[in-house]
């Protein structure tokens, strides 16, 4: 579909993350895999080798490992803003799973849809937003705006 037909959003962060301190936006990762199926081979290797290191490097993420009979192994991640996403790791190698998890840790829970502008600002204008009357000489003689300190310290010149 075209960009008008699909969802889109503006660039924003959850709770102004990064302005004060940076908080990793994932709170929980659950690895659902099967002990015997062929498709969970990568998941099993990841759990044997890399999951403990990952959990130690990210003490703010709780990692749950659930072996259950399933056809497709999944990663269920929960973000701080409440979004829960399931990613199938069907027939992925251990390295691909590490890459995927690394990508997820740098995401926030906002939807992965088209971002309308790659920029966002809360102070769009420093010198004042232009309007048709800026820089237009008025019919009456008007003095420019003096700063507060000059007005206060209006000592005889």
């Amino acid at each position, binding site marked *: 579909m075209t960009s008008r037909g699909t969802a889109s959003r503006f660039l924003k962060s959850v709770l102004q993350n990064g302005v004060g301190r940076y908080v990793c936006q994932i709170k929980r990762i659950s690895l659902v895999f099967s002990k015997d199926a062929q498709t969970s081979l990568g998941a099993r290797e990841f759990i044997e080798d890399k999951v403990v290191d990952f959990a130690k490097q990210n003490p*703010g993420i709780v990692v*749950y490992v659930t072996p259950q009979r399933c056809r497709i192994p999944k990663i269920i991640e929960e973000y701080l803003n409440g979004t829960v996403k399931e990613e199938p790791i069907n027939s992925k190698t251990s390295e691909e799973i590490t890459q995927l998890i690394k990508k997820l840790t740098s995401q926030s829970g906002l939807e992965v849809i088209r971002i309308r502008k790659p920029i966002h600002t809360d102070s769009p204008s420093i010198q004042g937003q232009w309007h048709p009357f800026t820089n237009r000489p008025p019919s009456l003689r008007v*003095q420019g705006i003096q700063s507060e300190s000059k007005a*206060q310290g209006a000592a005889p010149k």
Partner: protein
Amino acid sequence: MASGFLVNRGLSPLGVHFQHVCRNVLLTQTREKKRWMKSYMLLMERKKKLEGPPPPKPRSHQPNWDYHAEVQAFGCRLHETFSMDLLKTAFVNPCYIQSEEVNRRELGVDREAVALNLKDNQKLSEQGAEFSQSYLADCCRGAYPNLPPEGVNAIVQYLAGTEIVCHVAKNLAVEDLTLSAEFPVPNEVLQKTFFAVVGALLESSEPQKAGLFIRDFLMTQLIGKDLFELWAVINPMGLLVEELTKRNLSPPEPRITRQAGVSTVLPLHFVGLYSDKKLMAEGPGETILAAEEEAARVALRRIYGYTENRRPWDYTRPREDTAAAQAISSN
């Protein structure tokens, strides 16, 4: 179902297949298209439509939940060191303790076992609330020295009010960890829990760290907000006159500076406020009165230093402090 073997291979008279799971257990299955399936599914859909979505369940009642691990991760995620006992106490609300005791009594547990060994977060919550309000007020007064006490109070009430605190708490996973009687957690309870977490941080580490926590999560909510959205001023012109008399400046005189489309459906008037024949502020409006009020608000914003193009809040300050401390300690 890979173990066991099929008894009936090939065409069976009733379309029924038998499978031995072990010697004494026989499973039957019909693999054809089931005629009852459609009506059953339609009935279930109708029932779902009538009843609506199922009530939300707290995260602790869903699979994969380890309370101790979650509480530890909460502390690490925010880059803060909490003492575990204090943090766990901070999440326990008095309503939870009461409801748990009632449940235990109903289940017929002994009288001694009914009383839970949990302390509630009342004291921590009060400490946290008091500290937050005083810290926020100090911050505002330091950053905007010209702001009068009503303005400072308005900003602090907005930041420490239910709406903002609950928004912050929900996005920091405090709601998952709160122990309360009802779910979804009511806003007041969530606010008290958040302040109890602040109180726990205050007791576990220094007040400076708690101050930084409040700065990083509550002060950031002021970004993009205008002063008069937080502080409802009914008579900006009167307030402006007061401010100017306090500073010994002459009272403001409103004059029309620009006009456009006066006799149309969308008139535009610009009214400028002059003190001592010097322009203080200019504001637009649809009617002349509205333009005058807007000009008064613009003048107040300039006096209080809360304009849109002011210098943004400095979030790097503790790094300079630690750098200074390192410099001092190395010398």
